[in-house]
């Protein structure tokens, strides 16, 4: 008789209102203290999380494609069906012919289906690549968008397919489409912020986003400073959500991070913070 092992997958998305708030810092260090975790870097315009996992081993590098329509002028009768069908307004109709705006196209494939004259064929275009690394029991996945590519959504969705076990998703900053894609399927969101008025404003937009998706969430306060933490803490209390961890502002942490080091490996205090963050998530039933 065999034993059925269910590999339970838990996805935790890490978000911040703007770049540089410590989103990658929190996601890499959190993955680092969780056994057999997967770190997915969905900040595809600037994926740099993999750098922190020193001595990692690249095990795969896959090109990612999306499909966009091409038009056969000979077969096209100018019926305009495809143009009227496209919900994303990626097609214009000029001189009786459809004209594609490929950066607006969402690769839904619909226009090819509605053309009754076989004038539309989809072709693959390269939108970026996914690098998969291994380090010890950890899996590290980095999505890199090709320069000039306007939409990160397809690439992020492929990065998410690499989830395995406890998965930490490093989301793109802000609250645009790409961030919405990255939090898909997440069981919990960690909102990383700093104690400044500017960060407060930004994080409120992220709160709106995760509320919209109805995903439970909590906060991590980075560069915490007792004299100004109230800026964020008062807000967190007012919406009655958990403050999961405070990471004190420290030159040492900043220097190590700037040098591409994981503080959870090198600084015992920082390690404790991340271990108790992971424990806290486990107690909340989010891990395991």
């Amino acid at each position, binding site marked *: 008789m065999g034993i059925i092992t269910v590999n339970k997958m838990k996805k935790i998305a890490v978000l911040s209102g703007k770049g540089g708030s410590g989103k990658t810092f929190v996601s890499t260090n959190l993955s680092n203290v969780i056994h057999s975790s997967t770190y997915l870097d969905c900040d595809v315009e600037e994926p740099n999380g993999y750098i922190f996992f020193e001595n990692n081993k690249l095990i795969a590098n896959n090109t990612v494609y999306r499909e966009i329509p091409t038009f056969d002028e000979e077969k096209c009768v100018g019926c305009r069906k495809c143009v009227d069908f496209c919900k994303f307004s990626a097609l214009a109709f000029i*001189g009786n012919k459809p004209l594609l705006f490929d950066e607006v196209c*969402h690769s839904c494939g619909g226009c090819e289906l509605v053309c009754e004259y076989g004038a539309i064929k989809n072709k693959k275009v390269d939108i970026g690549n996914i690098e998969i690394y291994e380090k010890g029991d950890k899996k590290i996945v980095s999505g890199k968008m090709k320069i000039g590519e306007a939409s*990160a959504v397809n690439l992020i969705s492929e990065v998410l397919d690499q989830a395995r076990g406890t998965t930490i998703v490093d989301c793109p900053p802000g609250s645009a489409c790409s961030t919405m894609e990255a939090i898909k399927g997440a069981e919990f969101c960690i909102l990383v912020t700093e104690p400044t008025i500017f960060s407060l404003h930004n994080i409120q937009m992220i709160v709106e986003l995760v509320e919209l998706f109805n995903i439970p969430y909590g906060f991590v306060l980075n560069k915490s400073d007792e004299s100004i933490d109230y800026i964020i803490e008062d807000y967190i209390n007012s919406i009655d959500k958990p403050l999961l961890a405070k990471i004190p502002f420290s030159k040492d942490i900043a220097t190590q991070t700037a040098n591409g080091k994981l503080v959870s490996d090198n600084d015992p205090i920082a390690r404790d913070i991340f271990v108790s963050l992971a424990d806290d998530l486990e107690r909340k039933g989010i891990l395991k």
Partner: protein
Amino acid sequence: MKIGIALMEKNIEKDINQTFARAPYFAIYNSDNKEVVYFDNAAKDASGGAGVKAAQFFVDNNVDAIIAYRLGENAVQVLTKSNIKLFAPREELTAINNINLLIDNELNTLVDIHSGYHHG
């Protein structure tokens, strides 16, 4: 000649809207009979290429010229490929005054073209 503009209110005595594709209303002025027709801008809430959609609206209505403060690249491509001329309004004047200037050939060609705002 048919002239297209974007408006904040359905009134050409008011100013031209600062933005084009996501303006609340459009108007088309026909200089032959001095008639103006107002439209709700369906591209305003477009989930994708608002610029393409807004420009397509004016192409489908056979306008000859557009007066706009600034246009996105995609809108410009659709409009110019359809031989629609693009003009920049004078800031201090109302929509109708700008239209009259254009008819008198007194407006400059539009140069303010932005690279567009992507949906995400």
